[in-house]
């Protein structure tokens, strides 16, 4: 198959029009937004480029997608945005590094969490990296003991070799993010903080971006979501106890767990070799004096022989303690999702909004309510932006905890609202994930009058209640063939 045979350069949109192209690389985000530039030229903004799976077909598809981006933008991005450090949002920058290296990139936007001059960002990064390294070791052991669970957790934690697949590129979201950060050598780089408002470089007349998240404050980052108020019926789709877990529950306990992982598997000879302070330190990690310890060999033939009986293997608990790693991994994954850069892109002059939320979890959404924009935009509120939203890029592939209900979706009241879901049925089915989450999806369908476009399946069925002219107009703005194209594209009119 010829790579992206139908790829062609995107012409400048007509005045008062903006194009949003959702790529179909698999489970992951990659959005190309094309504005009409101030001089009438096309101005391209790329938000993320990544895919979760690493099988040969997916990697080949990613190659076609990046080829399309190259051709569509004529090798020139005015603005590149990477919302957060997750492989399903930035794998493309590694997998197709050469193509991106050859592109002209004028501007790079990142969340403040990537700004290593920011002390809070630095702290978070250091903590995170430290944990990630220790977790890798634990997950290694978990994978040996329980390959299935281990693989799933490793994939989530993005630490293992789970993605070292046919494409030959190992998952390394940190490295991909580093490449984006280092574009500062050739592009103008901005770190964005909530409350800021930016014009789109080169398209000041077409649009501007309001920064909503992630929140910049340690207390807020540490704030856990499990309060009763936030769990009240209707505020959220699914109640999850912790959606903004950058604060770790009991660091001492986690460290003790990691220490146990490090010591696990040390042979009795290693331990016998310890003397003096080394022995003291080793003992500190133990619950009891070594005198109480019995070797498994002694237990096998004697007091705990039932534990080793062949028929009783199913009752052993040798590896259950490693499941703690899954919990820590989950916590870390949610934390990173919550560092997502969230932009409300206001299209001018009509004031319609494209809401690009990346993978923001509920905590990130809630923090928007605290955001104050600087003059002359100080009258703009988050409710106002939600009310004017005409595109909701559905958060976190439609998962249950990345779309706020009462103060989110239920405030998107615009009668032209369209939703795009970067999801892939085959990929999520294999993982058993409910994406898109059915109750959220139902509401999404009714809010948008059925105007939902999925990356894998394209335009969804019309609702019986949707008037024919509305549906016809919607279809008229969609471009992209499910069989032929690597994207679906929608044309927004805001003149």
């Amino acid at each position: 198959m010829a790579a992206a045979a139908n790829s062609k350069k995107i012409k400048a949109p007509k005045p008062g029009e903006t194009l949003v192209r959702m790529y179909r690389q698999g489970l992951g985000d990659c959005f190309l937004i094309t504005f009409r530039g101030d001089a009438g030229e096309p101005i391209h903004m790329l938000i993320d480029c990544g895919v979760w799976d690493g099988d040969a077909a997916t990697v080949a598809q990613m190659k076609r997608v990046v080829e399309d981006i190259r051709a569509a933008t004529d090798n020139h991005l005015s603005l590149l945005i990477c919302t957060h450090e997750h492989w399903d949002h930035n794998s493309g920058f590694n997998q197709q590094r050469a193509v991106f290296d050859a592109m002209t990139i004028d501007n790079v936007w990142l969340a403040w969490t990537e700004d290593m001059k920011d002390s809070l960002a630095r702290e978070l990064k250091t903590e995170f990296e430290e944990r990630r390294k220790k977790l890798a070791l634990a997950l290694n052991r978990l994978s040996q003991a329980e390959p299935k669970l281990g693989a799933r957790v490793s994939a989530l934690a993005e630490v293992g070799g789970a993605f070292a697949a046919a494409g030959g590129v190992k998952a390394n979201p940190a490295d991909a993010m580093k490449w984006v950060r280092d574009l500062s050598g050739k592009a103008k780089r901005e770190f964005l903080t909530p409350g800021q408002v930016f014009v789109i470089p080169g398209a000041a007349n077409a649009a501007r971006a309001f920064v909503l998240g992630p929140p910049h404050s340690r207390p807020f980052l540490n704030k856990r979501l499990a309060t009763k108020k936030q769990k009240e019926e209707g505020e959220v789709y699914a109640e999850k106890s912790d959606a903004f877990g950058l604060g770790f529950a009991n660091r001492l306990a986690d460290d003790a767990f990691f220490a146990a992982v490090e010591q696990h598997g040390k042979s009795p000879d290693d331990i016998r070799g310890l003397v003096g302070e080394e022995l003291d330190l080793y003992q500190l990690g133990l619950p009891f004096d070594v005198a109480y310890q019995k070797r498994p060999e002694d237990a096998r033939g004697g007091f705990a022989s039932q534990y080793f009986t062949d028929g009783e293997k199913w009752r052993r608990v040798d590896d259950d303690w490693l499941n703690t790693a899954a919990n820590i991994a989950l916590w870390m994954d949610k934390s990173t999702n919550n560092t997502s850069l969230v932009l409300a892109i206001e299209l001018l002059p009509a004031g319609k909004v494209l809401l690009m939320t990346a993978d923001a979890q509920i905590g990130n959404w809630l923090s928007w309510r605290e955001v104050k924009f600087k003059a002359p935009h100080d009258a703009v509120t988050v409710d106002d932006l939600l009310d004017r939203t005409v595109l909701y890029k559905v958060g976190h592939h439609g998962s249950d905890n990345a779309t706020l209900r009462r103060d989110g979706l239920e405030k998107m009241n615009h009668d032209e609202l369209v939703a795009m879901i970067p999801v892939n049925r085959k990929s999520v089915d294999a993982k058993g994930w409910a994406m898109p989450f059915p109750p959220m999806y139902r509401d999404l369908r009714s809010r948008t009058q059925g105007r939902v476009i999925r990356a894998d399946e394209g335009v969804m069925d019309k609702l019986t209640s949707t008037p024919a002219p509305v549906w016809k107009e919607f279809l008229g703005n969609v471009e992209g063939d499910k069989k032929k194209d690597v994207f679906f594209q929608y044309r927004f009119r805001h003149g």
Partner: protein
Amino acid sequence: MAKRKGAARRAGPASCAKVADTPAGFEIAAPPSRRLRTYAFDPTLGLRLETAVLNETTLKVRWEPQLQPGPVGEYLEVVDHDPATGCFYAPVDLNHKHILAQDGLPPSEGNPQFHQQMVYAVAMTTIANFERALGRKALWAERKRDEKGRDIDSHDRRRYIPRLRIHPHALREANAYYSPDKKALLFGYFPAAKADEPGNLPGGIVFTCLSHDIIAHETTHALLDGLHPRFNEQSNPDVAAFHEAFADIVALFQHFTFPEAIVHQIAQTRGDLRRQNLLGALALQFGQALGSHGALRDAIGKFNENDQWVPHDPDPEEYEEATECHARGAILVAAVFDAFLAIYRHRVADLLRIATGGSGIVGEGELHPDLVNRLAAEATKSARHVLLMCIRALDYCPPVDITFGEYLRALITADLDLVPEDEHNYRIAFIEAFRRRGIYPRDVRTLSVDSLVWCGVTESERLDLRLILPTSGELGSLMLDWDLDTDRKRIFEKSCDNRINVYNWIRELKGRAFVKGHDVARAGKVVGLQLGRSYIPMEVHSVRPTRRTSLEGKHTVDWVIEITQRRPAWIDAEVQKANEAEYRRRPAGDPKRPKPDFYFRGGCTLIIDAESARVRYVIRKSIDSERRIERERAFRGSGQSLFATYFADPSTGRVKEPFALLHRSV
């Protein structure tokens, strides 16, 4: 040791005169119990001077003549493997004469053998409470799948689990849980998080296996699973909450039966008696010991700025609003606790009047020790009654999909069957407490004892039921000797046979009735079943005896028979119609048979008089209830925990350790 055991075995009835080591013709009877020391709360209390005295208690544990080092007994086997460290800890031999002579090892955090002793003693105490309440021996949940994950046939003897395993040091996290797959309790240990909590050394190790309440809580999960395995399936917001709440109720009230703690608290609080705050404060301490582990927390009340315990005003709307399972469970615990307080108040009212010359106002100074002891005796007695009442109600619960309201009905019916004359108004206390917390059964008109008691059947329904239920002759042929003296393996085997018999009778009757043209479907409806549809299989879930006292004061036996069914169900009601029809058309194993989103379960618990075969109560969860399936759809659609979302097995939707999950923060 071994020698004496061997000698004892040889000493059969023929040679009973010759018992080794005893003077001829004189045999020393085995003691009824073994005394074992444990922490009353957990080790942290011992570090505070004012509580140090009440932190040790001596439990009287049933004497097990065959107890092996471990301890390994009839019900439990403690296997002290610490997999993270890669070692075992030497097992304690509770029959060692030095240990026997001092009521077990003294409480110690640093000696793993004491840990083994404590988990054994507390778990055995919990088991004994269950057996006392239910009047029969406890069985653990059956093993449902073999090593390769294949289902084990329902009458396969491999399903029998003689002993629950306890691993006191299996985990390295702030967690402890019951594993339904491994039939084991796993306890963790971890460094304490903060130094500012009294008793916690910064970085000092906290052992979850040294908390009475955590051990009792986890053992209760296992016992409840043995009795009601389907309560593992979260089909409405109350089910998981019930598991947690029930485990807390048992831990809490079992704790109140230890006189040491109660006496100490009553003596300490002196004139505060009228406010009855001591028991609440004590309950709160239990809650703190459980930490995020328990449902208890501050649902009962909390300490104000002056360090006085103030009760939490019940708010009926909480039950409506709280959806997270611990928060919801806390409401049930609080309701039962309220009932307990009312019962206690009622029982001590006369004592207080006597002690205060009728004024009810307690004078200055210390309470008279006699009064303290009498009050404590009433408190422990009330606690024991509430504990046994709560456990006994389990026989009167529906087999699936329990709600708190149904549990209230079970409580009331069970108590009415045991104590026909409610002298101390226990039942009123329970109804009042549940009402104040907003817990109502869905389908009763008024909150009175009469209307809360489970319904029987009408005469015409009785005729219908004759088509499908076993006759008195058939019931008479079931094995009934499942009491406190029967061998548990035999109980298991006979109970399997009983289930198969009942199943076959119902099937044969159904067939016969069908031939005669009777309306089997109608009869099924009486007990909430859909009979005559092959795609909805039927399972006789349990057949067990339960004891009651008749109005004349006679002790009689009822059969508790649980029959369940499952129906394929889909989250979307529209999809349901089309898919269920298609599902019905295609045989099992057909790859084109639509895969259900979940199985909707229904069925009934029947309480049947063993002698007359008369159906006394029908506790029904109709399999064809549209309202109930709609509720379950809404509940299932509203999401699961993050852990389940990410790590459940995609092919089955099962999470490996459901209880581990409930006890974690994520």
